[in-house]
């Protein structure tokens, strides 16, 4: 099963490539809206980017309003990965 470290690395790599973030910005406590300035369209794009990165469907359970920080996003992907593994 994919490890949390791998989830973090692959998520950050995808976000750096598509949204031009730097390593310094992508700390687990970074707030998606306030620190990373992701708007509603970015949130939709981010789901597509991460789906392509992990090869899973995220959009059904995904809700930006419930995800405040990058850490919440990692948790969400990890939870999906665990459910997928079972």
């Amino acid at each position, binding site marked *: 099963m994919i490890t949390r470290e791998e989830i973090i690395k692959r998520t950050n790599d995808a976000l750096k490539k*598509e*949204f*031009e973030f730097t390593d310094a910005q992508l700390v687990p406590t970074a707030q998606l809206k306030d620190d990373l*300035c992701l*708007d*509603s*369209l*970015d949130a939709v*794009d981010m789901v*597509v*980017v991460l789906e392509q990165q992990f090869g899973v469907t995220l959009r059904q359970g995904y809700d930006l309003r419930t995800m405040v920080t990058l850490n919440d996003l990692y948790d969400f992907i990890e939870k999906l990965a665990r459910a997928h593994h079972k």
Partner: protein
Amino acid sequence: MTRVRTWFNTFFIGGAAVAWLAVSTVLAAPFLWLKSHEKDKAVRKFVYIQSLGIVFCMRLASTGLRVKTANRPDGSCVIVANHASALDLYTVSAFGFSNVVYITKGWVFKLPFFRYVMQSAGYIDAQKTSPADMLDLCRKAVAKGCDIVLFPQGSRKDPHARFKSGAFYLAEQLGLPVIPVAIAGTQHMLPAGSWWIRPAQITLKMFEAVHPQNFPGELGHLHMAQALKKQIMDFVDKEENL
């Protein structure tokens, strides 16, 4: 010498520019107010004339102002430009775009005096308008023959900030070509947070229009944003490092 020129630019040319905006508005307001038919179009034309006046002042304050234009396609377009100075708002007029609707941040709509002009011209408040309403308002503006102007970086704080993909999503949804515009030098003339107008070389470059169909797929608008940012910023960096 540069210090003397900065003083002259700020107090004489800057003063003349502010006076031009104020006096032209006071003189034109009664006529625009009385105009019952296509008032919004008349206000946009008036803003275009005002902007040409500001570009003339920029020319006087600069060490040279060059405008490199290109052929535009027939019909409405989405115009996108980099944004590092308050002067950028006026530069679109240098290419002859006279009937434009700006999509801007909400705080601009709170400025006294400006807000009346912006509301009358039919400009769109990006923060108050939902994505669905934004599309609807843009469709109405396009039906009136307007071009849509956006600064995808959203603010002047970081001249190399990411281009957000909203403008390109809009172009994709409306089926409009996108005209990239590079604005080089204004961040040296009037940087964000400064009131001093420094002498600087200004270059305004309009590129050939790009069609959203060239960027297929679910993330087409995101990839279009990245490609056009590169095109614009490569030009700006080259010009500013001359």
